[in-house]
């Protein structure tokens, strides 16, 4: 009998339930466990660099962040005393506290932005990806639409701040109006949304385009034979087929939108008033300017919990949860 089964006919000669018995045959046990141990050690060694980096750059900062959030913490002098969960309680329940007002105000603005940006960040790239997929000129349009995603936040906001000026901005010049794009509502949110969609749609478009290319061409051919037009094929064939990719794009867009910071910081300064100040701006201000690092850390963890809950909800819903 050969020591190892031939590849062909493996399942019939050695059903899976018999493998253990085969390994336990006298004379093979030592070698097999040695090989298994080597494999395990090897696997751990391969993941070791990642584990070291993950531990040092993610796990440790998270743990330390939790520790900071349970203390009064001034970045200049460090730990200024244990406060336990009182910061969390203040943020969540004490409406008279300035921190709590900032937290709920910032969270409200952030959720509003997620609500007005994610549908566009999924729909616009999907339409562009589908258009590129069905039309010609792929090698021209893909990089063209992806280009804004390569720009830095500073570059993007500088350009748009100039284009959207009330008096001399290019958009108002074209429209022949003086719309207050950056200094009054609802224009300020519309501007931030517009800039975000322009800036990041290319990235989502590439992911969705990759998803479309994985669909069997025969499905589209069949739809064409059945007389389906481009639009009906889009809604009845393409969208249902790329649903898993759409869910993924929706979740990463939600996470990205939740982390909104640069666009309002550089375009509107969080204004008019505080109306475009997301929670990240309050976290930044409290942590680095007002020197309330404990409060800032607690705000960040509560924001993280809210984000995780929303992402899980999206995932659950997309998987047909509740049905």
């Amino acid at each position, binding site marked *: 009998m050969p020591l190892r089964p031939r590849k062909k006919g493996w399942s019939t000669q050695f059903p899976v339930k018999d493998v253990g018995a085969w390994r336990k045959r006298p004379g093979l046990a030592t070698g097999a466990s040695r090989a298994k141990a080597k494999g395990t050690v090897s696997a751990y060694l391969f993941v070791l660099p990642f584990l070291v980096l993950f531990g040092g750059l993610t796990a440790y900062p998270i743990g330390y962040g939790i520790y900071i959030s349970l203390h009064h913490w001034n970045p200049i002098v460090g730990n200024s005393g244990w406060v336990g969960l009182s910061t969390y309680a203040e943020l969540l329940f004490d409406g008279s506290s300035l921190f709590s007002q900032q937290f709920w105000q910032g969270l409200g603005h952030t959720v509003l932005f997620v609500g007005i940006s994610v549908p566009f960040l999924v729909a616009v790239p999907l339409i562009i990806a589908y258009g590129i997929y069905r039309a010609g000129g792929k090698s021209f349009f893909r990089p063209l639409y992806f280009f804004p995603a390569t720009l830095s936040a500073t570059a993007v906001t500088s350009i748009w701040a100039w284009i959207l000026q009330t008096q001399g901005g290019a958009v108002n010049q074209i429209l022949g109006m003086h719309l207050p794009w950056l200094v009054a509502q609802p224009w300020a949110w519309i501007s931030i949304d517009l800039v975000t969609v322009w800036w990041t749609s290319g990235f989502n478009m590439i992911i969705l385009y990759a998803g479309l290319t994985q669909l069997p061409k025969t499905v589209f051919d069949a739809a064409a034979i059945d007389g389906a037009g481009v639009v009906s094929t889009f809604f009845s064939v393409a969208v249902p087929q790329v649903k898993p990719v759409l869910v993924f794009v929706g979740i990463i867009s939600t996470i990205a939108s939740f982390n909104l910071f640069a666009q309002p910081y550089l375009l509107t300064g969080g204004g008019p008033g505080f109306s475009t100040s997301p929670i990240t701006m309050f976290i930044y201000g409290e*942590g680095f300017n007002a020197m309330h690092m404990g409060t800032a850390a607690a705000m960040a963890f509560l924001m993280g919990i809210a984000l995780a809950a929303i992402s899980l909800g999206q995932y659950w819903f997309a998987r047909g949860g509740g049905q």
Partner: protein
Amino acid sequence: MRQPVLAFPLLLGALWLTAGASPLPAARAKPAATKAAAATFSFWNSGPDLSTLVKGFNRAYAGKYAIHYRNIPYANETEIVNSALSAHHGPTLMEESLTPSAPYAVEGVEVPILPLLKMAGIDPARDFPASMWNRTTVNKVHYVAPVDALPTVLFYNKALFKAAGLNPNTPPVNQATFVRDAKKLTVRAKGQWGYVQEPAWPNPFLFPSLLAQFGGREANPATRKILFDSPAGLAALTFEHNTIFKWHVSPLNASNGEAHNLFVKGKNAMEMTGAYDYPIYQKALGNHLGMAVLPVIGHRPADFLGQNYWWVFKNPGLTPAVRKAVAAWFGYYYHHSLLLAKEGTIPVWLPTLKNPAFRRIAGMPVIARAVDTGVLNPLIPNWGTTTSTYLYANISLVLEGKSSVKAGLHIAAQKMQQEMATLP
């Protein structure tokens, strides 16, 4: 399987050995050893780039003193410095604007600066403008010394004045002449404005200027009582509000930076802002640029002074030799302030301010006058970066017509008073 199992630890070992045997650490150690004789300190600033002057100092004091200089970005100076201090890698000498120094003084991580100035032969009462030295104490101790000044001034376009039938050499000097001129300079059909009042910037310069002109103060640093919602504050903000809604000499809803952009394009005739814009405006308008001290909108001349100050952090490296090195640098800097003035940095060294050579530099006599009547922000921790957020956010709502002057200042004062209780 055998090869990866062996290869990986070998690779790690090789990397470790290579790193350990690298000539780099030795190479780094060598200059440090040779420089050990020189008293060395680190100096960070977020104001004008001083690398040329630092190089000159290092050359002049080679072998005796040396500075490790770093120019950090103004936009996020606070987090850079605080992160460094948290990691015990902060600088010895720091230069930023005035109010960021206050929390460090309150937390006891700065050293009094008078002994260092005395060591350099500097008498602050004699050598610095009173506007930049007085009212810069924390608990009655001076921890900071002025580096440069950026007063608020009036810029105006002489060509537009001439076209409007105004004398280009007599800019407005009070509220009445300002409004009169602004009305004549506003030609809406051409998209030309007599004045552009942005809801946001440059209020951190303009509002404190007007407040002081009407006899008010932003806050009392000793009691941390907010004072800007006074009759003087109401008068100051009402003036700004009226330029848009009553006299219609300014557009509604001007975006951030629009006053500047329209001024450069010749569509804004007057701007009241920090003197930092002088080089850009000079380049854009050339001989058509006019600059004057702020018109007296209120009852007395006053203008807010943008500014940079320096202070010394307490750290183990602050030996007597390093203190001497810091003092030497102070002396070197102030004695070279005429050179810096020629490059656009406005000095705070009275011997330079009074120097005829300084007064011959274009624009500088106006700036020197503005320094004399300057006012500073109250020395309360992070006044400029944090607490004023409430003030300027509410002022912007007032100037967008979303809130009344009284309500805007009242809400801002209430929030800031609450914020005062949470500051160090």
